[in-house]
């Protein structure tokens, strides 16, 4: 029997039985080392909207009591595999749980007019293989212009919201004329109202940014860990 994993948290002994999991399965708390893992007994999970929302509902139910580190939808593993993952990455997981403790994720979307990124000289002379890899690189980390815009946006937000942000991730998706950025902020839950108010002020001061805010979310965007195996062998994961 496999286990469907929803999230990890540091200090949860029982789960609200009124909230069911994927495929209407019961959700239970599995204690591994000092970590609580929310799981359902499950062999396979159909990709349905209902199951995705059930995953979100379990994570959010935990979120009302403590800060979870969510797994991505579709995480199935045996108990032994989960145990191995947790014991192998115990230190990184403990650090992650400490990092997000008492925090929420707030998401900002912003759009602004961007100059059209043009192919670089090296793109023009590159062969098809190089061009393909350059395009892949652009998809993953953005081109130079996107990186510059990301840095500019980060600087602006840090100037305006700096003391309220514990951590930040920015993703840019430039189109032909309009740049869309998704910014994820880790904010202490006690300062969430202050954060929202500051964003409202910023929206009034800089209407061209077209800021949209949503949250609080469980810290989905701050969930991944640096694998200890990877760091030991110099591999960035």
């Amino acid at each position, binding site marked *: 029997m496999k286990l469907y994993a929803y999230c990890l948290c540091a200090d949860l002994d029982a789960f609200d039985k009124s909230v069911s999991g994927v495929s209407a399965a019961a959700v239970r708390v599995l204690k591994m080392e000092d970590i609580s893992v929310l799981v359902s007994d499950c062999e396979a999970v159909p990709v349905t909207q209902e199951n995705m929302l059930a995953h979100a509902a379990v994570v959010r139910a935990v979120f009302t009591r403590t800060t979870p580190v969510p797994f991505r939808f579709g995480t199935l593993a045996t108990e032994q595999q989960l145990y191995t*993952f947790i014991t192998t990455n115990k230190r990184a997981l403990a650090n992650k749980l400490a990092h997000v403790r008492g925090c929420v994720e707030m998401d900002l979307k912003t759009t602004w007019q961007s100059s059209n990124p043009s192919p670089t000289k090296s793109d023009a002379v590159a062969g098809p293989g190089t061009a393909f890899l350059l395009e892949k690189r652009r998809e993953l980390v953005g081109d130079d212009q996107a990186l510059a815009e990301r840095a500019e946006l980060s600087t602006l937000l840090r100037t305006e919201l700096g003391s309220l942000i514990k951590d930040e991730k920015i993703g840019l998706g430039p189109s032909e004329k309009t740049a869309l950025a998704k910014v994820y902020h880790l904010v202490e839950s006690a300062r969430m109202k202050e954060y929202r108010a500051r964003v409202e002020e910023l929206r009034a001061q800089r209407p061209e940014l077209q800021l949209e805010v949503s949250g609080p979310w469980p810290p989905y965007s701050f969930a991944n860990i640096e694998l200890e195996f990877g760091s030991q062998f110099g591999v960035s994961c």
Partner: protein
Amino acid sequence: MPDFDQILVGEEWESTDVSLLETLDHVLNRGMVIAGEITISVADIDLIFVGLNILVSSVETAHDVLRKRETE
């Protein structure tokens, strides 16, 4: 389908605008991924992580690629 009005707890969260798309985006695109060789099975399709997050592919597609390489 879960009712998010019931899931959101507390006055602060009741007024939160949590859209369906954003929820699905969080659940599908973010969250911790267990790296290694754990098979993630959804909708009768096995998704498997090969190596350390280098490639995510359906097992069928991976087999197709391997078969093509063998015949080349």
